[in-house]
């Protein structure tokens, strides 16, 4: 069958598998696991088969449900349209779902009612795939709702932990407010354009922009939808549910939540800003999005430095990286969007890896308190290496993938600053670099307090994570390194077509409604400026240099005589002898540095700031909703005043 049917099969397959798990899974854990694995693998294969036609050849697959084609220029059916941007996200979604399914095989072994987990998990996966493939506004809203429900259900899955219920409640309330605002935006758009198909709406708005400017209804709709998708992507004042939900959710869900559920909001933002509303060339919108992204970056990383809980710290880092992504996509340039999409992919990879390592530690030791853990690198060597790879990726150390995407983002912001003459963007560059250093600091702290240092007594018997948890970790780690070194290949295959697709709404409209439609409505075809970016940085060259020099050093070291005593290590007890830890004459005792005692100088100097933000994150639901509503009001007023 031709590949046109693949998107729909992928989505429907997941929902069907969810039903099958609900029917057959309650008796046998193995049945539910098998169905989940098969369904995720099928979705991944189907999506990967689509890479060639959609991304490399530039086709856009349009599929009308039930064959309700448009009649006399009016879309009357629900349309699924898959362009390179949607494919980019779909590849990431299906990959992470597959990794999470493999990871959860052993991770959930102590939990009961696992079939309900897998049902919700498959519903989540189906809704995520449907979200990125749909071409209809209301269908997008429905998929977001299914995603929210599944995510809330999975957060509260371990309902013997009271905090899980609390986190799920907060997520539900704030997420519902967001969905309601999205629905209000969709209703307003329908009232104005009388159609729900995104391509047709894009055409009508394009005509509106060409002939005089946006009507107040459309501006209001943009503001509301921006707020709605902002809540879903957990930007600055809306970020609180993420921080609460991550520590208590099972890790195999945390990794999907932190990577793809948040990215669904980002995808929505890109879709509405670039394709549907086509407002990204207005500098007021650019400043709005970039400003929110900038504050999100900084706030996320500083809150992360103050945490005691491993997974809560990772959650705040997620927020900070989403800040990077939103900043880069708010710039409105081709390079910015490329950097943003590349960072989406890299963040997916290294954040999933980080959560998998955290889950492995939690599973084997039962603790995620940074002050208690320590010295686990001896007991869990594989986890340590994977964690180090992920930590170097997120900190942006060459040659891992975080470096490539962060560099693109710095270059994009600086270019925008130079090109527009606006000093604000230069400050954004500086903030981005400082946040990068603070991210490095935070991960040094975590590595120190969890993997290095001294091993406490009660974790003496910790073992390495089981193989089914290690396999997805290693696959993701190798991909982290691979996409960093071979980023040009990735760029050519996945990112550049996605950027091209989002900058040319005319193609999108044409494929859906018939060619020539866009021209008749004079939809602007955004000029994709030549992305002359990282041709300067050839990672292969740098790696070669590094390897050559290292070889030289090793030759010198190994050519020395060995009789001066090679490096020794024995099994003597650590309290005594020359292999003991050096305490300058004091008695040996376990004096492990708790994670929160590090970086004292930094915390001391920034004490007013830290006290302020820790007090503001009070944990009370009504405080968080107050921020949400205030931010919503600010954004709506801003769009009314400035976006014409």
């Amino acid at each position, binding site marked *: 069958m031709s590949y046109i049917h693949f998107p729909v099969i992928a989505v429907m397959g997941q929902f069907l598998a969810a039903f099958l798990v609900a029917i057959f899974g309650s008796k046998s854990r193995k049945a539910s696991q098998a169905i989940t694995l098969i369904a995720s693998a099928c979705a991944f294969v189907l999506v990967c088969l689509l890479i060639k036609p959609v991304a490399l050849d530039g086709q856009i697959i349009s599929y009308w449900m039930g064959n309700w084609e448009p009649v006399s220029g009016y879309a009357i059916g629900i349309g699924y349209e898959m362009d390179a941007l949607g494919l980019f996200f779909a590849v990431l979604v299906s990959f992470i779902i597959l990794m999470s399914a493999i990871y959860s095989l052993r991770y959930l072994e102590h939990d009961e009612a696992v079939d309900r987990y897998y049902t919700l998990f498959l519903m989540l996966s189906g809704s995520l795939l449907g979200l990125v493939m749909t071409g209809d506004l209301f269908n997008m809203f*429905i998929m977001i709702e299914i995603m929210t429900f599944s995510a809330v259900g999975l957060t509260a899955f371990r309902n013997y932990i009271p905090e899980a219920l609390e986190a799920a409640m907060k997520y*539900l*309330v704030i997420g*519902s*407010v967001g969905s309601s605002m999205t629905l209000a935006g969709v*209703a307003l758009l329908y009232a104005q354009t009388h159609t*729900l198909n995104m391509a047709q709406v894009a055409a009508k708005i394009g005509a509106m922009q060409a002939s005089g400017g946006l009507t107040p209804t459309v501006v209001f709709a943009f503001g509301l939808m921006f707020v709605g998708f902002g809540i879903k992507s957990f930007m600055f004042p809306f970020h609180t549910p993420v921080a609460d939900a991550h520590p208590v959710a099972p890790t195999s869900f945390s990794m999907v939540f932190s990577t793809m559920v948040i990215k669904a909001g980002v995808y929505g933002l890109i879709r509405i800003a670039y394709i549907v509303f086509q407002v990204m060339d207005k500098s007021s919108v650019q400043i709005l999005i970039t400003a929110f992204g900038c504050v999100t970056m900084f706030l996320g990383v500083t809150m992360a430095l103050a945490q005691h809980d491993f997974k809560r710290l990772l959650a705040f880092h997620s927020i900070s990286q989403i800040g990077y992504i939103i900043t880069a996509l708010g710039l409105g340039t081709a390079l910015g969007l490329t950097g943003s999409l590349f960072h989406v992919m890299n963040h997916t990879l290294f954040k999933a890896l980080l959560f998998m390592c955290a889950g492995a530690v939690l599973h084997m030791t039962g603790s995620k308190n940074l002050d208690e853990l320590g010295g686990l690198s001896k007991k869990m060597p594989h986890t340590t290496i994977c964690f180090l790879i992920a930590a170097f990726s997120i900190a942006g150390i060459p040659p891992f993938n975080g470096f490539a995407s962060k560099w693109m983002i710095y270059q994009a912001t600086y270019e925008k600053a130079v090109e527009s003459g606006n000093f604000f963007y230069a400050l954004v560059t500086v903030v981005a670099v400082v946040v990068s250093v603070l991210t490095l600091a935070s991960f040094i702290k975590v590595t120190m307090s969890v993997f290095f240092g001294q091993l406490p007594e009660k974790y003496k018997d910790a073992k390495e994570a089981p193989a089914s948890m290690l396999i997805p970790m290693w696959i993701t780690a190798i991909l982290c390194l691979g996409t960093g070194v071979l980023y040009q290949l990735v760029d050519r295959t996945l990112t550049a077509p996605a950027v091209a697709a989002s900058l040319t709404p005319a193609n999108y409209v044409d494929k859906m409604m018939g060619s020539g439609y866009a021209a008749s409505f004079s939809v602007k075809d955004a000029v994709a400026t030549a992305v002359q970016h990282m041709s300067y940085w050839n990672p292969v060259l740098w790696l070669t240099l590094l390897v050559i020099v290292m070889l030289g050093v090793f030759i010198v070291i190994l050519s020395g005589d060995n009789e001066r005593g090679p490096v020794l290590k024995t099994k003597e007890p650590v309290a005594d002898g020359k292999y003991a830890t050096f305490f300058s004459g004091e008695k040996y005792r376990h004096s492990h540095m708790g994670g929160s005692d590090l970086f004292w100088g930094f915390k001391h100097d920034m004490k007013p700031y830290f006290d302020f933000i820790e007090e503001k994150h009070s*944990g009370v639901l*009504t405080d968080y909703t107050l921020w949400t509503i205030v931010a919503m009001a600010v954004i709506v007023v801003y769009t009314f005043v400035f976006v014409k």
Partner: protein
Amino acid sequence: MDATIHSVLSVNYVAAIFLIVLGLYTVVAKTNLIKIILGLSIIDYGINLFIVSTGFNGGTSPQFTLSELFSGQYFVDPVPQALTLTSIVIGACVDAMALALVIAIYKRYKTVDATEIRRLHG
């Protein structure tokens, strides 16, 4: 005809906005979790009223058999009605899930006051 439509719709729209704002206020200002859930529902009802009102243009209801169809027939837009039905269902799902969570929270925390349910903070 247009003037009556206009006045009918204005009442609808004002009521919808009022309900939404009332719902938002409830979610922010009330600390009892059940009241917060009620606030969420009120926001949903306001939006539903809004959606249905966008379809009104003075015609008849869009229910007829195929043999009654003739060209030039004047009926209200059926799409918003479909959207509203879906949205009502979603609102019901949100309420059900939220209330289930509240029951479970009450069993563990022994309170439904939002200011006391704050073990995750900082």
